[in-house]
């Protein structure tokens, strides 16, 4: 009597968890924007045997954004998940993997991320501040003022803006803009930049030094600007395939799609 087919994998089985971990590491390792994502739930898994010790695995993952910028060297396990009240960003990914002799490799992935709805947040937390659009004028002013302030005081290299990661504006009780943005060190010192900022270029990849800044601009009851930047030091650049990065944007692994 032919052996009964193996029971379908459960989403919480150790093998499913291992596949999800390989998929999330791939997604974070191939993204250049935003923040790292972590698994919130394995929504579905389907295994298509190809032969002995050779399976194609289709995974549906529900992810949540963490507070670690994508360029941060912090291990994902140490990255705090952004809470619901902090205006969480969730991602959904369909990933196709192959498992040969116990080793996973990602063949294709398609991801989409979006911030949670403002209505849902305000329902649970009426006084929470919400995510602002990244091209909001106040956000842009805050980032520009904060970076200028930092560069005017630093004795290290002049920093250039890479991207704004996220921003929130509170209007009550005070008027406060909080912005997080990624920066890159340039080939100028801050002093040289004062003379000729146009000559200051981001360091080449083999010397790149990225960092991350948080700026808090208080407009009311009184004006105040705080900015804190941390540089990571030189990191080995990740391969170039942007994936899960901006809320609301879907990326496909070039050339392949989940069939």
């Amino acid at each position, binding site marked *: 009597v032919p052996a009964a087919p193996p029971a379908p994998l*459960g*989403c*919480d089985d150790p093998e499913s968890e291992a596949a999800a971990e390989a998929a999330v590491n791939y997604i974070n390792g191939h993204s250049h924007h935003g923040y790292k994502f972590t698994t*919130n739930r*394995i929504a*579905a898994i389907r295994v298509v045997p190809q032969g002995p010790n050779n399976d194609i695995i289709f995974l549906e993952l529900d992810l949540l954004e963490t507070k670690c910028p994508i360029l941060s060297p912090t291990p994902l396990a140490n990255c705090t998940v952004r809470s619901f009240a902090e205006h969480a960003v969730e991602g959904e990914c369909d990933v196709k993997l192959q498992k040969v002799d116990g080793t996973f490799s990602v063949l294709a992935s398609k991801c989409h991320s979006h911030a949670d709805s403002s209505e849902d947040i305000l329902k649970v937390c009426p006084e929470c501040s919400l995510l602002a659009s990244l091209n909001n004028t106040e956000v842009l002013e805050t980032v520009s003022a904060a970076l200028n302030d930092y560069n005017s005081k630093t004795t290290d290299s002049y920093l250039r803006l890479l991207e704004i990661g996220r921003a929130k504006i509170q209007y009550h009780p005070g008027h406060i803009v909080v912005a997080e943005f990624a920066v890159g060190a340039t080939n100028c010192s801050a002093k040289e930049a004062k003379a000729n900022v146009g000559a200051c270029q981001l360091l080449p990849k083999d010397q790149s030094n990225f960092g991350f800044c948080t700026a808090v601009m208080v407009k009311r009851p009184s004006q105040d600007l705080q900015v804190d930047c941390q540089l990571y030091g030189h990191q080995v650049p990740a391969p170039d395939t942007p994936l899960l990065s901006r809320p609301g944007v879907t990326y496909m692994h070039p050339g392949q799609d989940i069939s």
Partner: protein
Amino acid sequence: SVTKSAVAEAPQHDKVPRPVGFVPPPPPCPGKIRHFDI
């Protein structure tokens, strides 16, 4: 004339009695939520 013969009720072999406290296994998917459900 046709008479209906009384046939004894078939013993309920097809319904295996479940042991007391039987808990069906959780559905295989979707999996558990690790942080919070949005």
